């Protein structure tokens, strides 16, 4: 590859483009009670949701900025410069043909339609703040699965939404959860009825397409007793010069014996601040898996959590982070064992290069009654050059005598002997490094559906281009 300068990467960044703005309506910059009321009124929400938003707004204002993580960047956020709501089209498309041409072009360039036609059941593509395209295969509808954008979910299933919305992540959980609760728009509402197994992964692509515009998706996934579902979230965003804030809230509830896998491949452009709260509750015999890939963005702070509240519940978090020039990936995982015989596994891989910083920040907590709980945590970091940085901050709070907790972490560079071996086999140094990096993240990649694995490998190759020379 010819690009040796990391700055060239931005030019080469193939998903970094912006369409002409065709939004129909947007709120003024900043967030206050009027703006919140306006958002709620446009959506025609019930009173309780307006009240929920207003309470959250108060919490957001009262709560100080977190005093950990990347304080320099966090303290630099100007909440008054952000547009909190943009509505791109007057109505939602129900088929691909009905989606406006400009927006469709954007998706064409992202390569979504091919992926969708070949592999996917429903595509829920978030373009700016609202889902513009949404299709569900007949088969899934017949099974009684509800797969809607969050706004439609609130309209069509008010009781379900009211019962579970904000129960896993209360609006006062953290500053960015409060912000999301006040200003949320779009996201996914997914309900899988008792005993239903959704065989095909459901997925939503979303992207930010407006300078300084915040995205505050709100996703709620409810898997009823004995059901199972795999949800995939993929993100690409255009490159912009001023920071864009992304503060999503994702709540998962796995009822007795249910299984949820939530896969994210995140690839925000290098100016996005991605401050996301993701948390799942797993009841008796339920399984929740977060598969989380963090590429892109300027700062990511994301720690997918699983609360194992029922006996024999199982949790797994599998994540990779890639931090390039000017990037800080502060990612990790949290698992709370609150019931007996619960098990969890956390596997985290990070790669830093060109002065990037990757941090693992984790929490494992075992309550006194979580007898027989078993936890295994493994964090590996790869540093590709001397300017890069890796941090590991795994907290373990264990209050149960017969719990077993194991944690391991290593930080190392690409081995000279490994590179030498591969070069002796005819690979260039660059190819050799890429091969080693691919091997390093293999445990993650093999968990992805095929087309995502292909895309991730492409992205890693792109990120790695010019890394040695």
């Amino acid at each position: 590859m010819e690009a040796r300068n990391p700055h060239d990467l931005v030019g080469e960044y193939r998903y970094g483009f912006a369409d002409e703005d065709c939004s129909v309506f947007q709120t003024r910059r900043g967030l206050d009670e009027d703006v919140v009321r306006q958002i709620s009124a446009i959506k025609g929400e019930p009173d309780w949701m307006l009240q929920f938003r207003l309470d959250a707004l108060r919490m957001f204002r009262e709560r100080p900025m977190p005093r950990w993580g990347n304080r320099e960047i966090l303290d630099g956020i100007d909440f008054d410069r952000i547009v909190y709501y943009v509505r791109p089209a007057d109505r939602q498309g129900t088929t691909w043909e009905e989606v406006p041409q400009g927006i469709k072009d954007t998706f064409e360039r992202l390569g979504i339609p091919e992926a969708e036609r070949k592999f996917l059941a429903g595509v829920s593509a978030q373009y700016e703040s609202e889902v513009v395209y949404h299709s569900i295969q007949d088969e899934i509808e017949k099974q009684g699965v509800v797969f809607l954008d969050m706004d439609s979910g609130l309209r069509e299933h008010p009781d379900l939404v009211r019962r579970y919305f904000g129960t896993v992540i209360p609006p006062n959980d953290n500053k960015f959860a409060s912000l999301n609760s006040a200003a949320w728009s779009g996201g996914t509402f997914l309900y899988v009825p008792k005993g239903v197994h959704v065989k095909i992964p459901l997925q939503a692509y979303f992207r930010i397409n407006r300078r300084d515009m915040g995205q505050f998706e709100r996703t709620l996934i409810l898997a009823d007793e004995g059901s199972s579902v795999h949800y995939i979230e993929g993100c690409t965003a255009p490159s912009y010069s001023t920071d864009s804030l992304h503060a999503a809230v994702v709540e998962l509830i796995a009822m007795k014996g249910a299984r949820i896998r939530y896969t994210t491949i995140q690839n925000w452009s290098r100016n996005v601040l991605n401050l996301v709260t993701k948390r799942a509750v797993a009841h008796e015999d339920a399984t929740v898996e977060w598969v989380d890939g963090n590429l892109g963005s300027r700062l990511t702070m994301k720690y997918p959590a699983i609360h194992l509240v029922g006996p024999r519940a199982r949790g797994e978090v599998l994540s990779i982070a890639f931090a390039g020039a000017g990037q800080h990936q502060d990612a990790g995982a949290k698992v709370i064992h609150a019931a007996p015989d619960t098990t969890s596994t956390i596997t985290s891989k990070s790669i830093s290069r060109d002065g990037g910083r990757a941090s693992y920040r984790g929490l494992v907590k075992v309550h006194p009654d979580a007898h027989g709980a078993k936890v295994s945590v493994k964090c590996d970091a790869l540093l590709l050059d001397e300017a890069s940085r890796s941090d590991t901050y795994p907290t373990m709070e264990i209050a149960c005598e017969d719990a077993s907790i194991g944690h391991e972490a290593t930080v190392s560079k690409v081995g000279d002997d490994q590179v030498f071996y591969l070069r002796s086999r005819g690979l260039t140094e660059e190819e050799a490094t890429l091969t080693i990096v691919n091997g390093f993240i293999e445990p993650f990649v093999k968990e992805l559906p095929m087309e995502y694995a292909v895309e991730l490998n492409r992205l890693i190759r792109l990120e790695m281009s010019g890394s040695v020379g």
Partner: protein
Amino acid sequence: MNRFDPEPSFLARRRDQARAAALSMPLPDRSGHRFRFTDAAALLPAGGIEAALQAAGAAWPVRVELPDEARRAGVTALSFGEALPAAGGLLEEHLGRLAGDGDPLLALNLASFAGGTVIRVPEGVRLAGPIRLEARPEAPAGTVASGRTLLWIGAGAEATVLEDADLGSGFASTVTEAVLGDGATLLHARFETAAKGTSLFSRSAYEVGRDASLTHAHVLLPAGRVKAEAAPVLSRPGARSAGLVLALAGGRARSDFRVVADHAAGDTGSRVDYRAIALGRGRSAFTGLLRIREGAARSEAYEEARSLLLSRTAAADVLPELEILNHDVRCTHGAAVAPVDEEALFYLRTRGLSRDQAESMLVEGFVEPVASRLPSGELADRARERLRSELAAARTGQGGAPGEA
């Protein structure tokens, strides 16, 4: 306020600065990992820093045992009162330099310490026997008994310093600063106990010179609360440090150990082995940071933290951290919390041991990988004996009898 007579101007100045620092900074909170598991306010009497600064500090009497061979070789072990006129230059250069006054607790100690020991081991002197320092402070209500130790180990010298701090009442703070010259070897071991209802804060700050080798051992046996910190700085290439930590928290005891191994130069190595046992309503905590600075290439760091819980109401907190700013390194940490192996327990019981006996044997096996690494056999035996007696005491609900086994 003068603690020593005469108190030279450099010390008065440093105390004033520390006093101002103590009053101007907030207490460290949970957001910094150093105080993730201990409330800093719990290390201070009611009224906090201000009251503690106001109160006339409690005395810090130290019993010093300096072997004859050391005396003959020119090693000195002086109280601060003696050292200030005699070794003023050494003190002026190093006192407070390593531990600093970067937070109210450290600043309070520097501003108000009332006793302690200054040990100087001349260059090239190799000592076989240990130098012992024993402090048994009693702090009256409202005060923090504060003491300091300064160890200066000359280039190529070799020494063992055993420090005991046994807090009988109230609040205490003890800070040790150790400077290891090029090629020096130091074994510094601390035994720390705090009676029920008392709180002891300690910090051991080390500067390890070129090709110098530090072993720092910490045995924490609180009935009350001990917050102990070790901070080796590997300041020159070839510097090595090895931390060996044993902690036992029974009754309602709190043991919190913090280590920061700071690789400030390349070609340095550090290692930390931690083993803790919590029983009764005891709680053991560990936060350990391996930090590799930008220029510290070819460094190796290793950290292992294991905790054993012996009762339903005990708890263990562990936070092993890595901050790596150089790619040409090898850093590994591992942590585990596990119960006593039921199968091993069953096997021992089939051999006729009572449950307590079997458990004690397994606990001894659990600490042995650290105990056996203690370079002095005497030290290892003492650690084993103390653990055994504290374990027995904790079991019978006495909450850990202070004093020698």
